[in-house]
């Protein structure tokens, strides 16, 4: 029952909140209630169910990594819902917003709990298309553009996805997601199928080179929507990868190297691109791409084998958990500086700082712990070139810090309100702060095996007392913060853009758009030509009409008929008929 409620409640909430008269409070609470089953499932292990009547016979079941992500998702949707409830209370289109919000929520929960291909794909699509409504919520031209690009990319992704699923299901002979990785491992075309899935889900994840929609779409949505987009929906793609990847079962060297290098490219490149931005939300979006790149790396390692899926996937999930909560905190935080006044601002800055640290892997945060998990596995893999990975990872920590301190700087330029009040939605934000990445260390979600693997039965506290690790995590952050501070302090170093981003958000999408527009014009011309050709290429009936409706045709047939009516002609016919019949009768 709870499995269905997980999906049904958000849907109901979507419909209900959409019809709630404007000005009435409580839609936030509705969404909180709607997340309760998901949270329950995230915290408590419930045995899976099979719904034979649903779609193509659905299975609902959670494994550890997905449970972790479900918990993250539940938390984020609950807080974001609460946040949105008051944040958007004066918005003219709040009803619509809540509708898409609830639908996307249902999709997000659904895809996490489903264990078979059809329902997974269903909820994935539901989430994807519902969040379109969130992206274009503001209806500004930039939001529309972002939405358009988002949609096109989403459809391209879906097409790759469905192809990969067709092939995967055919290869596995089963609709169960759990059967797919082993099947791909055995299938000679496994790599190809996985590659299709990699592209399909890569769109959602924002993997290089499919990420360009993300810096446009995520910031375009209202703050709470951006929070869930970047905090949890982006993870749906990751979950998809985890479903397909035969982690620990295969040794796909080249695939592994490709994925890892894509991940590192994203981790570093996106951070650098993000630095050129002036909008805090765009900045965060690039940070998301960068962080997803880190997770991609982890997955890529898994494809080389050697590390059991039972360890690696929960680790990725935990990393995602930490990143998700923190990123959501920061995204929602972008709405705060303009509204929070007085002493509340201290709390706000503290919260934002914690969020930044959590992502960068600062001491005492979940970020440190999850990054440590990552490092452990990086150290264990035998993938060629693994030696440089740690260095790259450290570099990425520096760049991330740089990026996020730049984010804080951008926020600090927002003028504080004159009043000393905090808006209502400050409360859920604070709540989220407490529901943050620390939980990645809690036994409630941390699998014992993983813990044992990492800390070698010394326990989590031992890890934290290991100052060396802490220090190791500390200096890149310090380095990043210092660089930022110095560049801001000294004018000759301060080359940060202020009004216009140095590079347009979405970077090379603009080249694509430019080329694409030219191409589209050509294509349109071509199509128009084709269309007019098709139109002029008349069906057989038109040709017939032309003949039958023509004046000449009727004249000709009339004169032929009048010839046949002439007595003398009939006489000739008579004669001919007579002769031929005579000939035949001989």
């Amino acid at each position, binding site marked *: 029952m709870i499995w269905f409620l997980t999906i049904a409640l958000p849907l109901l909430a979507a419909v209900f909140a959409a019809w709630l008269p404007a000005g009435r409070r409580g839609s936030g609470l509705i969404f909180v209630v709607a997340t309760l089953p998901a949270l329950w499932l995230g915290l408590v292990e419930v045995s899976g169910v099979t719904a034979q009547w649903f779609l193509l016979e659905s299975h609902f079941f959670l494994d550890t990594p997905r449970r972790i992500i479900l918990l993250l998702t539940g938390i984020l949707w609950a807080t974001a819902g609460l946040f949105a409830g008051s944040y958007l209370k004066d918005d003219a289109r709040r009803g619509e917003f809540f509708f898409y919000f609830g639908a996307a929520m249902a999709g997000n929960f659904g895809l996490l709990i489903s264990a078979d291909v059809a329902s997974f794909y269903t909820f994935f699509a539901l989430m994807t298309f519902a969040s379109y409504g969130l992206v274009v919520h503001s209806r500004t031209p930039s939001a529309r553009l972002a939405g358009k690009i988002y949609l096109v990319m989403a459809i391209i992704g879906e097409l790759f996805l469905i192809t990969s699923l067709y092939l995967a299901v055919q290869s596995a002979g089963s609709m169960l997601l759990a059967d797919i990785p082993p099947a791909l491992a055995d299938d000679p075309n496994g790599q190809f199928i996985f590659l299709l899935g990699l592209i399909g889900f890569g769109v959602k994840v924002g993997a290089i080179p499919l990420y360009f929609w993300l810096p446009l779409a995520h910031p375009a949505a209202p703050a709470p929507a951006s929070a869930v987009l970047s905090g949890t929906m982006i993870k749906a793609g990751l979950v998809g990868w985890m479903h397909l990847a035969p982690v620990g079962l295969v040794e796909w060297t080249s695939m592994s190297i490709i994925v890892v290098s894509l991940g590192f490219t994203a981790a570093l490149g996106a951070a650098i691109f993000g630095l050129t931005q002036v909008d805090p939300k765009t900045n965060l979006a690039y940070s998301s791409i960068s962080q997803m790149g880190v997770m991609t790396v982890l997955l890529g390692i898994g494809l080389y084998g050697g590390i059991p899926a039972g360890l690696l996937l929960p680790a990725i999930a935990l990393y995602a958990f930490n990143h998700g909560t923190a990123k959501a905190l920061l995204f929602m935080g972008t709405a705060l500086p303009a509204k929070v006044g007085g002493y509340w601002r201290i709390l706000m800055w503290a919260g934002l700082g914690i969020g930044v640290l959590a992502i960068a892997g600062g001491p005492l945060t979940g970020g440190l712990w999850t990054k440590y998990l990552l490092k452990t596995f990086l150290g264990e893999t035998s993938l060629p070139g693994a030696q440089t990975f740690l260095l790259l990872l450290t570099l990425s920590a520096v760049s991330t810090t740089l990026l996020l301190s730049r984010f804080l700087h951008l926020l600090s330029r927002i003028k504080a309100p004159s009043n000393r009040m905090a808006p209502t939605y400050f409360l859920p934000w604070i709540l989220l702060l407490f529901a943050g990445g620390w939980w990645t260390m809690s036994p409630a979600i941390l699998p014992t095996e993983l813990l044992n693997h990492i800390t070698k039965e010394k326990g989590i506290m031992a890890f934290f007392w290991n100052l060396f690790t802490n220090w190791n995590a500390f200096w890149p952050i310090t380095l990043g913060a210092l660089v930022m501070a110095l560049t801001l302090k000294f004018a000759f170093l301060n080359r940060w853009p202020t009004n216009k981003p140095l590079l347009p958000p979405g970077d090379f999408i603009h080249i694509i758009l430019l080329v694409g527009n030219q191409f589209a014009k050509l294509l349109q011309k071509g199509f128009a030509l084709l269309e007019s050709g098709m139109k002029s290429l008349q069906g057989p009936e038109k040709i017939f009409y032309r003949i039958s409706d023509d004046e000449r045709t009727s004249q000709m047939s009339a004169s032929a008929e009048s010839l*046949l009516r002439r007595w003398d002609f*009939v006489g000739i016919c008579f004669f001919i*008929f*007579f002769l031929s*019949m005579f000939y035949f009768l*001989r």
Partner: protein
Amino acid sequence: MTHLPTSSFPALLVGLPILLATLSLFFGSKGRAVVGLAGSLLTTALSLIAIAEVTRRGTVIHILGGWDPPLGILLRIDPLAAVFIGMLALVGVFISLYAWWYFRVREADTGGLPQFWPLWLFLWAGMNGLFLSNDLFNLFVTLEVVGISAVALAVLSGKTTALTAGLRYLLAAITGSMAYLFGVALIYGSTGTLDISLLGQVLEPGATTTFALLVITLGLMIKMAGFPFHFWLPPAHSAALAPVSALLSALVVKGAFYILLRLWMEVFGVSLTYAAGQLIGVAGAVAVIWGSWQAFMQTSLKLIVAHSSVAQLGYLLMVFPLLILAPGVTTDSADWLSPAWTAGIYQVISHAFAKASFFLSAGIIIMALGHDRIESLRNLVGNMRITAMAIGLAGVSLIGLPPSGGFMAKWMLLKGIFLSGQWWWAPVVLTGSLLTAGYVFMLLRLAFAPAREMDTFRPVPKSLEVVALLLAIGSFLIVFPADFLIQFLESSAVFGSGIEPIMEGGEYGNN
């Protein structure tokens, strides 16, 4: 022949209409109509009773005045004749009903044209006689009776076009009759008998027979307006009054076909070749396509219908090649004969119903509009939905869409074509159907088209419309007694038989 059971029905079937026709001449305008209608009803009833008699007793004969053939006249009704008589009666009675109201409506401008009734009854008598005759010369006489009364009916309106067309018709009819009679003379000269049944046994192949066959066939082709001798039909049929057109097109032309069929099957078997059948088939095929195309090109309703008759008669001619067997095939092994015969019979009957309905509807439209240019049919559906429906249904039957009689005919024809392996006729049937659909739906298209200001529909008695509709429905209903009908016909000697040519020679023929 004389050993068959005798019955007075054959004589009555010819005599009663003549009697009534003569009787009606003694009455005035009103009385004639009354007598005419009553006579029609009586004759129909009589026909039906006679058919019942045939179903009960099989072929019955009547020897007029007790004078045995060859000098005496022997009338016989075999199942084939019975079916034709039945068709004539059923379609005839509807046309009579229609004519009754039609002439009443037109009394004001034409004086009710009382001549119609005696002429029609004479025609009926002639047709009945034609179907009943078992004698080549009698057939000539009945043909002439039919021809003259038909022409007289055709010129009834007295309009110039009708008169010219009528003269053309008459001259063609006389030419045809004379050619036929010349053939009869040749036959008589070589055999000394005119009795059809006897001739079938004694006729020998030879030059005389061949010549006789040639002139008889050509003469009858002229009379039934087979291509390329259809020159008289469209003007005559389109210029006549509506009930007359219906009679001419639905019934009269079938008379010549009946004789042709009978003679080919029962008399000239010895002299025919496979190739000759093909030639007739080609004439039929050309008629189908040419007639349909011409109908499609016409702009006045009655001309469309008249040209359509040319095409529909072409289908009848297309039966002949199937009936003449290729060398080495016997009647027993030729399983397509029965379908071919059924096709012919159904084509005759369904065309009679459908074409009568079509012409009667055309008459209604002329009554309502004062002319029959088809552009004026716009919004016919809105103004006269019964007539529109009648045209639609009759058209559907002509096209041969299921489950109409036309469908049955085309189905059987195609079946025969395929079974006999003469697949080359199939495209003709198809093209014919399509072109027929072309003109039928050209009418319907206009019927549904938006009205223009200039044409106003005058009210027309509903009863006229209903008669036309009933005939159209009839062309569908005739499918249902098919089982019975075919069984009935199979008891006739000629039905289902084919011609096994025995003559030597001819590279297409048998050797």
